[in-house]
């Protein structure tokens, strides 16, 4: 997928013919990297979701189908959970750690596949029906479920609130496109585009706030 506005900037500034398939792929790469925190202090796409809890089940997944990548905060019911390293989680008594309890203290990623996390200890009861509620539109709070706030990835890059990022993304894509082996390879262009991209990524952070 690609964003037409980013593609337009690439076309307008490149002048030489670039490979559209490759630049679209690079565009996806950069947008993925934004949600992984590759560019310091540049966080634009975020999301939130309720995750239904089943009694006695410890392991849950972030809603990756809707773009969730990296959790920024996880809650069990109303309480924010601690992120536990495996050795911290394992420091709890094993019988207590694996037995369902009313109160969950934390979550851990270490022994799980990447989009999954495990609650420590597992919750004792089923969560209330979530229905049409979302964390940003709550008619009735669905008790005892997980609320996830996370860095998000939408490869179409549709938001108007982060429109200023399209320019540095286009520049970084140009840097990669002109850096690879092709009939339009141009190492100097790569270097300058990459540095301009860094320059404009820094402009994402308001002056006066630490960069």
């Amino acid at each position, binding site marked *: 997928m690609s964003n037409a506005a980013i593609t*337009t*900037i690439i076309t*307008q*500034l*490149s*002048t030489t013919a670039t490979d559209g398939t490759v630049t679209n792929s690079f565009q996806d790469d950069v947008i993925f990297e934004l949600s992984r925190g590759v560019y310091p202090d540049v*966080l*634009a*796409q*975020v*999301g*939130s979701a309720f995750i239904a809890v089943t009694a006695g089940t410890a392991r849950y997944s972030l809603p990756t189908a809707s773009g969730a990548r990296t959790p*920024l*905060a996880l*809650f069990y*019911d*109303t*309480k*924010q959970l601690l992120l536990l390293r495996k050795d911290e989680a394992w420091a709890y008594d094993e019988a207590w750690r694996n037995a369902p309890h009313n109160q969950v203290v934390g979550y851990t990623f270490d022994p799980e596949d990447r989009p999954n996390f495990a609650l420590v200890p597992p919750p004792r009861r089923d969560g209330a029906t979530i229905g049409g509620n979302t*964390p*940003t*539109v*709550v*008619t*009735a*709070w669905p008790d005892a479920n997980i*609320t996830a*706030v996370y*860095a*998000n990835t939408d490869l179409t890059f549709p*938001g*108007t*609130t*982060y*429109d*200023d990022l*399209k*320019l*540095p993304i286009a520049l970084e894509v*140009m840097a990669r496109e002109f850096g690879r082996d092709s009939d339009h390879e*141009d190492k*100097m*262009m790569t*270097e*300058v*585009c*990459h*540095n*301009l991209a*860094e*320059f*404009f990524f*820094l*402009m*994402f*952070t*308001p*002056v006066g706030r630490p960069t």
Partner: protein
Amino acid sequence: MGTFAGNTLITELARRLRDTTNVAYPRATVLNIINRVQDAMNVRLGLVYGQTTFNTGNQALYSTSAIASDYAYPVQMFDANQRELDMISFDRLTQQDEEWVRRFGNRPEVYAPIGRELLAVTPIPVVAMTLTMRYVKHPTALADAGAPLWDLPDEHKPLLLDLSEALLSLRSRDYIAIQEAVNRAAPKLGLEDAAQVLRKGTVGDRLKVKT
């Protein structure tokens, strides 16, 4: 609001680029880059604000695009009695109150932007109220015409032209012109360090240009 229109800025930039007939630098291309640059400048420097109101709901998280489509980041927020809320970082919010996502009170006390798409306002007021938010906005897009006039203050025109010139010079691969334009712009943005990095990337270029 400033007094410059898109057509004036395009013409002035075309003269800088020695292309008054817009053969090498089409007017649509110049206009798009001007719009991208004024957006990045305003995010960095916080020159133009918008103001809007929104009603609190039964939740602490709000979608920013639903509040204002031209939102970039918040500057001030006031409750219904015109008392100002404190803005804190999301990291601090999560450290200060582990139940912020479901904390209720008579009036909201703090707000925290999360990326560009979410805004946390907590505690949740028991009785819904209207909040007023002032925010840095994405400026109105200019057209190749005498209207609309640009949102930014007129004294920032040199910065806009410098950055636009730097980007458009990618078309001609004029790396020294890019460096010189960025050198002029960087101190006005507090980005002198980033300009130094750019200079390192173009050192070898003096061997093949301006002989």
